[in-house]
């Protein structure tokens, strides 16, 4: 079976810094692929290259057989590829429902306003924001804003969802809740590429994992394989805390 998303030889420089270095990987249909690596490894930049926030210096991004390299983000979104932002970016003075409606309106199905509202309600309900539909996005707690990020992306009814640290900053109960939501999303047939620092969570959620270090791929495989990979452990040695967590997971 062919891959849903294929990334080939992707590179990106910022000034003198090589943030992503000849990276290749692919996401299978219906799978959850985890993308991990130390801070500043270039994970978020990979997302930005995939969905067109930045154009790559080299390499290709192929989504459902179509080359989407360098297309602007709003085109990429139409292809059915949605993402959340690591730093939440709510439309602060719009209601939760309106925020989600934007996602639904301009997503894969190009819905009319009325049908988009329906899709928005469904997405909000899925993440548990259905009782806050009329609240302004600025009034939500940080956990609420994280859920809003997710709901907005989901409302677009994407084929592939890119999640950038949706668990960061949540307390253990909220993390549990969010993991449940992510599983539900996957079970509904949406493929997921996710960045996460929370090792236990990503190890248990992912079907396979790609490890990034200084922009380059360090290792790839099943969660168990990756966790015991010597190079991975070494890369994390500067961060003994993380290394310990890796082994524990």
């Amino acid at each position, binding site marked *: 079976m062919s891959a849903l998303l294929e990334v080939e030889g992707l590179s990106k420089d910022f000034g003198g810094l090589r943030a992503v270095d000849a990276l290749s990987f692919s996401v299978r249909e219906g799978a959850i692929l985890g993308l991990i690596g130390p801070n500043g490894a270039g994970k978020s930049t990979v997302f930005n290259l995939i969905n067109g926030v930045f154009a790559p210096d080299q390499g290709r991004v192929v989504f459902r057989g179509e080359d989407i390299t360098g297309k602007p983000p709003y085109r990429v979104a*139409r292809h059915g590829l949605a993402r959340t932002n690591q730093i939440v970016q709510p439309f602060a003075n719009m209601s939760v429902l309106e925020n989600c409606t934007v996602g639904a309106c301009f*997503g894969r199905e190009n819905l009319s306003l009325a049908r988009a509202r329906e899709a928005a309600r469904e997405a909000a309900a899925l993440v548990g924001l259905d009782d806050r539909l009329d609240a302004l996005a600025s009034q939500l707690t940080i956990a609420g804003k994280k859920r809003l990020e997710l709901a907005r992306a989901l409302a677009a009814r994407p084929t592939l969802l890119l999640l950038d640290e949706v668990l960061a900053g949540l307390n253990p109960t909220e993390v549990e809740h969010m993991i449940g939501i992510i599983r539900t999303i996957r079970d509904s047939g949406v493929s997921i590429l996710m960045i996460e620092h929370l090792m236990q969570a990503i190890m248990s959620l992912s079907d396979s994992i790609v490890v990034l270090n200084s922009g380059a791929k360090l290792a790839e495989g099943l969660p168990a394989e990756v966790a015991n990979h010597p190079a991975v452990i070494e890369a994390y040695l500067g961060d003994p805390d993380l290394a310990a967590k890796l082994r524990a997971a």
Partner: protein
Amino acid sequence: MTIMRRPFFWIIAAVVALFAVLPAAGNNVELRENLLLAAVYITLASNINMILGYAGYVNFGSIVFFGLGGYFCVWLMSAHGWPLAAALLAGGVAVSTLALLFGLGILRLRGVYFALATIGVNEGVMAFVTNFGPWGGSSGIYLSPALFQPLGGPAKALWVVYYLLVGVMAASLYLSYAVKRSKFGLGLLAIGQNEDAAAVLGVPTPRYKAAVYSLSALLPAIAGGLYFFKSAFIQPPDAFDLQLSTEAIVIAMLGGQGTVLGPAIGAFLYVQLRGWLLVSPTFSNFQLVIAGVLLLAIVLFAPGGLMGWIYRRWPRLRGFLE
């Protein structure tokens, strides 16, 4: 029409009816002239609000649309003998198209860069027209009084122009409302809140920005055509009077940027306020100062303007009115 079931429709209809009936009763020409100016203010402010309030972009040069619309209309009538209606429409379409072309260029600029470029568009267009022979350069174009004949002579023509302008004002308010309640409007509001996030969610930002810039040129251009047809004379300093676009911004901010009714209420408040403050003609130079102080106070202390404040106090009203 579902729109007729919204309270908004009837509010606008009532305002338009007042504009139509008040001066006609008793043939009050002075009141008509004042209301005509108010209609121009509301038209400009309501159209600028679609860029400023919805999409969050400042256009310091909206007067360019008004002035160019005036020029196209006056020129088509005087040099090519077009009837008023055709000249107005052609002017509106021409200016909208020009705005679209400008827009595709300068709307690649983000935020403050765009605002700076609009100042440049203003200077550039003014310099161009001042040097443009067919439009009379710096001395402008005069309309022959004979052109008022088809409308039944000068006195009657002034009434016709007035009613047409009130129509343009009403169209502006309805347009603003229709845009706000559309998918296009939702995209613009998203751009105004966070352009990057909007693009990531699929809002085609360059196209939408260029479209709203162009759309917001149409009715001001027609208003400009009417205004300068009425004066029977147009020259660069009048056509591109920066003060008018400045006042349009102040009015939109005063009434409440991003709200549909704000520009109309803002125009009313602004004209009243200026009336109280400028009783003596020696103070007429202070018009800009008043506009400036008012704008500063709004920006610093009440960025939502009057309607923004009202909707914050009574959130239910927003759903009812908008």
